[in-house]
């Protein structure tokens, strides 16, 4: 095995999985509320307990979401000409024949995905707290209910995309969120601009 470089810190990995597991638990319980899935409710011993689990998991999700900004927000706000070109070739995902421009640590798809998670994550968190804590204000309650459900659709669409792209679609990527390490040779191919900046190539 050749030289490895660290792409994700231990803290970032822990942060990712707390966010991911809370997010999926929230989505499953959310679907159970939306479609009255009694079998899911039964797992929690009833819908009232499931509501408590959903609410407090939401707190965990919110904290984890805020913490991710330390690691990813800065990078996700910076785009260059290669990023524009990346979109023109759809990141190479529609054909293996196109030439994908050299990327830094994250490609613009990842960066925009992250921004989406931040924006819709804040929306779903704030509206969730609205439904939870501001029950006696009809305007806030109904607005929160609407925003919560709109943001939910973003998660329903984007979370499976993220899971697919980070596992089956890009072999080797999932491992980075487990060990944090990526083989140097692979990193040079996938993140040349990052590797150059780090003085590794």
């Amino acid at each position, binding site marked *: 095995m050749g030289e490895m470089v660290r792409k994700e810190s231990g803290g970032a990995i822990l942060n990712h999985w707390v966010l991911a597991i809370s997010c999926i638990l929230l989505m499953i319980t959310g679907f159970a509320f939306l479609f*009255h899935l009694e079998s899911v409710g039964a797992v929690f011993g009833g819908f*009232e307990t499931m*509501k408590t689990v959903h609410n407090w998991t939401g707190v965990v999700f919110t904290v984890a979401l805020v913490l991710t900004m330390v690691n990813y927000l800065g990078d996700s706000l910076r785009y260059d000409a290669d990023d524009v070109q990346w979109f023109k070739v759809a990141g190479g995902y529609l054909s293996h024949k196109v030439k*994908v421009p050299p990327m830094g640590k994250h490609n613009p798809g990842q960066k925009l995905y992250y921004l989406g998670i931040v924006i819709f994550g804040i929306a779903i968190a704030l509206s969730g707290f609205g439904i939870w804590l501001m029950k006696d204000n009809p305007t806030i*309650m109904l607005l929160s209910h609407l925003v919560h*459900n*709109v943001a939910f*659709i973003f998660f329903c669409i984007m979370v499976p995309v993220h899971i697919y792209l980070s596992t089956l679609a890009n072999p080797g990527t999932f491992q980075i969120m487990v060990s944090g390490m990526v083989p140097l040779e692979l990193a040079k191919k996938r993140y040349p601009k990052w590797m150059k900046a780090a003085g590794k190539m």
Partner: protein
Amino acid sequence: MANNSTNRKAILVTPEVCIGCRACQVACKSWNELPGIKTKNNGTYQNPPDLATAAYNIIKYSEVPSQDNPVRWLFVSRRCMHCEDAGCMKICPAPGALYRTKEGAVAFDRDKCVACKLCVNACPFDVPRYDAEGKVTKCHLCFDRIGEGMLPACVKTCPTGALRYGDRDELISTARAEGFGTIYGEKDLGGLGSIYAFKEEPNLYGMKENPTIPSSVIFWHTYLKPLSLIGLGGVVAAAAIHYMAVGPHKDEEV
């Protein structure tokens, strides 16, 4: 909805013959074992002032003088409207907390209520109330009486016939035959289970004109709910197709 209009039951309120005796309020409390409420005199006989966890029905008293009757006093019995298209049932996230009886009533099961209060905000008539333990309460059309072939407590006790219970279609045609031009709730929200016979304008009695479920709730129910499933399923399908048609990323080609 499982109910068809042929066996749907309803309460017909005829405010014109109501004498404001409030026996309906007492009978409701008696049957449902609801405690008294400490209230203040606010210069009206209407008491309690509004629906409450211990008041599933009330008579609203309003003084609406007219040209030929300067002391006209109007009484209208208010309770859950038992909408066919019920906003509370639409938005409720807890299965069975609000449910439809075979008579068409919207009843509740407080053990299944998750205390979210969404129903309060989706009700077009401001009916559901939450008790001290944070559970929903409201008129349930005495589901436990009507299920056994008895009259709702309020109807049973009404001395004037201002409250009548029976087959919804029959009540409507009876009211029409009696000369009531307006049947409030005949068509609103798919048809209400509490219908009102008026000779005058319903808004004179403080009845809400064109009651509707909040538009955000209808939008959510019609579009967002299905879209969440379609979105999830569509993306999973698209990923599967992509994996087969284009395949995973290959670093050799970079």
